[in-house]
């Protein structure tokens, strides 16, 4: 007799097997979850060398300096800079240190209600400029290297255009500069957001509310499938540790000062002023042509938050003749944490900066 086309026996067998596996997995998972898990993030040693209000400057010293000019990394005001140092062997900071880079990184801290009036200008011409001057003075250098992440990259673009004399090389990573695109839900939603009203009612833009917005960008994957994946692997200690580290980072979201949020939404997302050289910061127009230093621009092909269309125009708009675009086949976060990008991203930055260093030690 032919085998029936609906293999009921096989289906039942598979279900029974699944049930058995799940039972064993849960038993093992209890052991994993109740024992000591190493889930700390940002474990690379650093020293806080400068503080101003809530802002701190972290200094990561390499064992051997291979690049004389220090690199200042500026993270976004959304989420925290700990993403660059999630775990050993998956840390942009660690890789850059191994390549002999002297790194400074801004920790924006947690803005409180009293910070609600801080504008983009206060961040760029205030905190960032003070920190750049602090580093220049410390090393007795006229210029330093600058690297920006996402919104931090936008701040770096503004800073480099306003203070080009202080920046030697500019590295941009997943940096939105052109907001005239409907690619990516964030672009669509932000154009419809009444930032003024939100700012008025919340004081600052709550991090939790923004995180909810990010989850809503792909609810099937981020709210269901991710945790199904966790359930399937929760008996794997290493998987659980990595998963918890990522969760720790994702749901550690400081609020964004209301005035900055309003300015970013209105002037950038809605009016797209930056790329048109029409953005005014503290009374001065941001002219991208003044960015004459070398520019290295990274972005992700599958970035759903800052799509390539938002990133790739900047190298054509700056005054510099030494520009390079690098597009990775990954998303917004994958560029920093995926195993594949780990091997390429930070080493490329270090290599590119060293190539442009007058004095390689």
């Amino acid at each position, binding site marked *: 007799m032919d085998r*029936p*086309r*609906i*293999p009921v026996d*096989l*289906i039942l067998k*598979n*279900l029974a097997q*699944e049930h058995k596996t799940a039972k064993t997995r849960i038993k093992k998972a209890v052991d994993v979850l109740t024992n000591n898990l190493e889930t700390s993030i940002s474990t690379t040693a650093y020293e806080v060398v400068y503080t101003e209000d809530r802002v701190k400057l972290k200094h990561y010293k390499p064992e051997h300096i291979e690049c004389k000019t220090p690199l200042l990394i500026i993270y976004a005001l959304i989420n925290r800079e700990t993403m660059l140092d999630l775990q050993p062997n998956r840390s942009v900071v660690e890789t850059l240190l191994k390549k002999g880079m002297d790194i400074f990184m801004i920790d924006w801290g947690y803005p409180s*209600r*009293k910070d*609600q*009036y*801080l504008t983009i200008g*206060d961040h760029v011409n*205030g905190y960032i400029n003070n920190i750049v001057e602090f580093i220049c003075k410390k090393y007795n250098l006229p210029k330093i290297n600058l690297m920006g992440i996402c919104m931090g990259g936008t701040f770096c673009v503004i800073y480099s255009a306003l203070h080009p004399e202080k920046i030697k090389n500019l590295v941009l990573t997943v940096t939105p500069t052109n907001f005239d695109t409907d690619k990516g*839900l964030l672009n*669509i*939603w932000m154009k*419809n*957001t*009444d930032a003024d*009203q*939100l700012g*008025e*009612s*919340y*004081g600052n833009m709550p991090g939790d509310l923004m995180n909810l917005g990010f989850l*809503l*960008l*792909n*609810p*099937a*994957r981020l709210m*269901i*499938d991710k945790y*199904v994946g966790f359930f399937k692997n929760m008996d794997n200690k290493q998987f659980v540790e990595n998963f918890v580290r990522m969760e720790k980072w994702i749901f550690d979201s400081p609020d964004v000062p209301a005035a900055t949020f309003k300015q970013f939404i209105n002037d950038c997302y809605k009016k797209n002023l930056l790329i048109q050289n029409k953005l005014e910061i503290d009374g001065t127009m941001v002219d991208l042509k003044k960015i004459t230093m070398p520019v290295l621009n990274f972005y992700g092909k599958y970035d759903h938050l800052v799509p390539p269309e938002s990133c790739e125009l900047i190298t054509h708009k700056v005054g510099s003749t030494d520009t390079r675009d690098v597009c990775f086949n990954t998303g917004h976060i994958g560029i920093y944490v995926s195993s594949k990008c780990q091997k390429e991203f930070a080493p490329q930055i270090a290599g590119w900066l060293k190539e442009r260093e007058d004095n390689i030690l």
Partner: protein
Amino acid sequence: MTQPSNAGKESELSTFSWLELATGFWEEISRILNETQPALNDDAPLSPDANSFNGKFRTYKTWETGIKNLTSLIQMMTRQENQKAASDSMVTFFELLSQVTGDSSENLLEFQKQLLNSISKIGEHTKAYNFDDIDQHIFESSRKLYDSEFKKYLYVPKLGLSRFHLERIAVLIDKFNIHYSDLSELIYLFFVPLEKTSRIMHAKIDSMIKHKDFVENPGAFYNEWIKMLEGHYMKLLQSGEYTEVLKNTIDSLAEYRKSKDEVICQILKDIPIPTNKDMDDVYKELYMVKKQVKELARQLEQINNRP
């Protein structure tokens, strides 16, 4: 001059008979209360711990006064010489009442019709990655009903000493209702992909059973379900409808929070606790002062650095 119709006369007669009956009823109530509560009579001794009001409980006295006023009013209306005027006023009043309730009933009926339409759509055939048939009219209708029938009562002019506070509370109730409606719509929309995916998967399973072509691995079903769900969400989240509903929800949330803060600020005003508004003023001044000091420090440094 038009003569009143027979039906009108009958209505008048029955109204006045009812009014006489009502007078009797309230007089009887008043009499029973007086008899069954001897302690409440004017000549009864004063109760030492009672909330006294010339020997009577305040509540009872208020009741009694109210009943007396009502019976007097009814008696006055039923007098021969006042019957015509009372009848005319009542006709006007009933006309007004019928107009108001008529409008409301019409709107309620319309809303009910929409609701029935929506319910009848449950279980209809659904197409994958197609959101043209999203039925949001029910929310639109309920919003219209709220705007036309309920909202206006919240904004009836408030009078007297508590006017200021009552106005703010009315705004808070209104903003909460609007936000609640927007949020319900957003949640409804958010569940549409889940519902759609489940229905399509169900149809797929039916088809597989029919064609005796089944997937052996149950995990493959989940993978297909999550992929389809993701596709449905992508389609929905990019749609203009969703963007608009999301915007409305966020806007109404912001307005609700603002109105809630205003009410809380009013409450806190009488307590020695600074409100957010007070602190925001202080923070703003602090921000301006810090900015000025930094600028002055910078200028001073420039002067000092001059050769």
